[in-house]
């Protein structure tokens, strides 16, 4: 029973972290129609920049400065890269971001080398907040939850309550009209791209110390972010939140409990075959839920795309 509570907290942390990435990605998508393959690369850059800054100025300055640098870089990528490719259509845009992701990984290796960086939790937060049945919940995880919830609230406030937010929402649906009203739509696009990537940067800073800062960190997370926004519904912020939490909990619980395929088969009345070695399905019988935990989101995505192509909370079919 206590384990369930612990898993709920762990899943929440994973889900919220995922949300910080998917929020920016879905915002960028709904605005420009571009699935940014390099989004997780900006997350990685956030972690690396923060590590570099934290050596000189400490973790907190890293948390403050690194996302800004990432956001500026992101805006630059939009201004000098994407905008240029935009004229050729969506597929080249997607492929551009794909190439960018490869290049950023190479660049990171070029600058920082291939090893994992010793980027650690700040001392202030390096204690156990509380324990549930022998399982400690580190204070840092609580801190992660607060940061992500804070960012979500801030984002929601800006998008729904401020003038800038109104313009952005309008530019999402009617770019021409907004442009003719005298707003600089390309500037808005650049801004949204910058903010979206900066959000990914924040996620990178706070995830770097716990999930590791290494050149493969973008690849590990990259495609799962897509999966999240596809499941949630492309362009839907709430959808991204729901899908992030869903994936967070789904994978956490799948890993925490050893549910074997043979149990399921037995439960529905198929008995385990006598001689496993000769059975061509032997591997299927021994599959356990932790083994497939990380591919569950993909299964979910394919199912969703088949039966509800617009996603959980999405309105449009792209």
């Amino acid at each position, binding site marked *: 029973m206590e384990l369930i509570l612990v898993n709920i907290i762990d899943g929440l942390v994973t889900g919220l972290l995922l949300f910080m990435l998917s929020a920016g990605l879905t915002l960028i998508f709904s605005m420009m129609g571009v*699935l940014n393959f390099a989004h997780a690369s900006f997350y990685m850059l956030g972690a690396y920049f923060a590590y570099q800054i934290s050596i000189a100025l400490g973790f907190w300055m890293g948390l403050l400065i690194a996302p800004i640098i990432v956001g500026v870089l992101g805006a630059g990528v939009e201004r000098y*890269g994407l905008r*240029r*490719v935009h004229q*050729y259509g*969506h*597929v*080249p845009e*997607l*492929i*551009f971001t*794909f*190439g*960018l992701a*490869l*290049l950023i990984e*190479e*660049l990171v290796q*070029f600058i920082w*080398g291939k090893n994992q960086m010793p980027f650690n939790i700040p001392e202030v937060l390096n204690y156990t907040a509380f324990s549930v049945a022998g399982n400690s919940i580190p204070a840092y995880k609580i801190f992660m939850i607060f940061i992500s919830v804070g960012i979500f609230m801030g984002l929601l406030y800006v998008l729904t309550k401020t003038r800038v937010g109104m313009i952005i929402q309008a530019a999402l649906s009617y770019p021409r009209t907004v442009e003719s009203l005298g707003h600089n739509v390309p500037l808005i696009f650049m801004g949204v791209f910058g903010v979206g990537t900066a959000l990914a940067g924040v996620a990178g800073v706070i995830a770097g110390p716990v999930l590791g800062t290494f050149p493969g960190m973008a690849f590990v997370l990259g*495609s799962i972010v*897509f*999966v999240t926004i*596809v499941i949630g519904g*492309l362009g839907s912020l709430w959808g991204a939140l729901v899908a992030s939490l869903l994936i967070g909990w789904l994978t956490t619980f799948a890993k925490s409990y050893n549910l074997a395929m043979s149990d399921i088969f037995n439960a529905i009345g198929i008995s385990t075959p006598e001689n496993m070695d000769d059975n*061509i*399905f*032997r*591997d*299927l019988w021994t*599959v356990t839920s932790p*083994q*497939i935990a*990380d*591919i569950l989101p*993909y*299964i979910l*995505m*394919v199912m969703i*795309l*088949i039966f509800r*192509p617009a996603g959980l909370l999405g309105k449009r*079919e*792209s």
Partner: protein
Amino acid sequence: MSNQLTTDPSKSAQRMRAGSMTMTLMPWILAAGALMLMPFIFTSSSALTIMNQMWITVIFALAYNMLLGQGGMLSFGHAVYAGVGGFACMHIMNASDFFASFPLPVLPVFGGIFGAGLAMIVGSFSTRSAGTVFAMISLGVGELIAASSVIIVAFFGGEEGISGDRTYAMPFFGNEFLQQINVYYLTSFWVLLSAALMYLWSRTPVGRMANAVRDNPERAEFLGYSARWVRYYSFVASGFFAGIAGGLFAINYEIVTEENLNTASSGVILLVTFLGGVGFFFGPIIGAIVFTLVQTVLSLQTELWAFYAGSLFLATVMFFPGGLAGLLMMHVPVFKLGKAKLLIEPYFKTLLPAAIGILGLCALVEMTFHFRHATKGDNEMTLFWTTFDSHTVLPWLIALAVTAVGLAIAKRTAPALKEAWSDANSAGEVS
């Protein structure tokens, strides 16, 4: 109506067709000749291995372009079909009685059948729409199958894959395919056959409609064609040829592993195809050749090969969305107009300094890398056949100067090139 059928224009069209018949056959004859002669130029078996790799990539890239270029479907998991074809062939290789009943050159057909079979299953739900939905399903299915490759050991052999021995097949005219050269000709035969079949496919009704559906699926529907089924047939055909590539891989390396179907391989084939150019049939062929050379040959020269490959790719997407083939084909009108001469001098003046400048830039990158990562005391490095000390100022100054001067000259002369380019093109349109 009937009298209209004998009007002059259609007659001239017929004549054109007859003329284009030999025109279209020419490249194939040339290609066959080149394939035959290559082993006499590059005799070592490693060169043969690299060329085999190239031809396999050519087939795979062409198959991929049936989707991306001709059908407008962006797939992030196409390696799966090649991989499954390869695994199927490997299992057949290991089923010794059955394998011994037919000669080795037939084996890739089975790879094709299994590739197409998997494509039939996946395509039944993924081809309902193109665009993002298709791309995401391909990504999801790709990840699923790649992940299950380490779980389902019985078929995929886990992380070390499965291996076999190609020489147990029925001897083919006394040939047991012991040597690399035998395999080279087998691969060459298949690359020619597959490329020809894929070319012909693009000339069939369903191939033509694939283009139509790519450009305007709705209009195609109002012409009696279901966009979904057109996509489905393209998808299955693409899976078939990808499977053939996988089968050839199995024959060449006698081992297939998880890397044959993981997402990295799927990404690479996208890169290869786009680099070569999706708009032209021969684009992926160029892409496959260039990329294989970069991967196997450049990687022996520098650890940073992936960095250069990535930069090249990004530059292609940004500046030449038509890929290398598009770059080549840009010149066709110029040649047709007989104005190619106009371009020689500006090209010389701009591209040569630009190339030198870029090489200078590469030198700077390499020197930085060496300076940062080389071992202590090992200050010497060799670049462009020159050995020097990377910890002294002079080489840096030289590299910087070369880069700056090269790029500056290129920038100065670029407007003249632009002008010459428009001259060479536009003048023709007037005449």
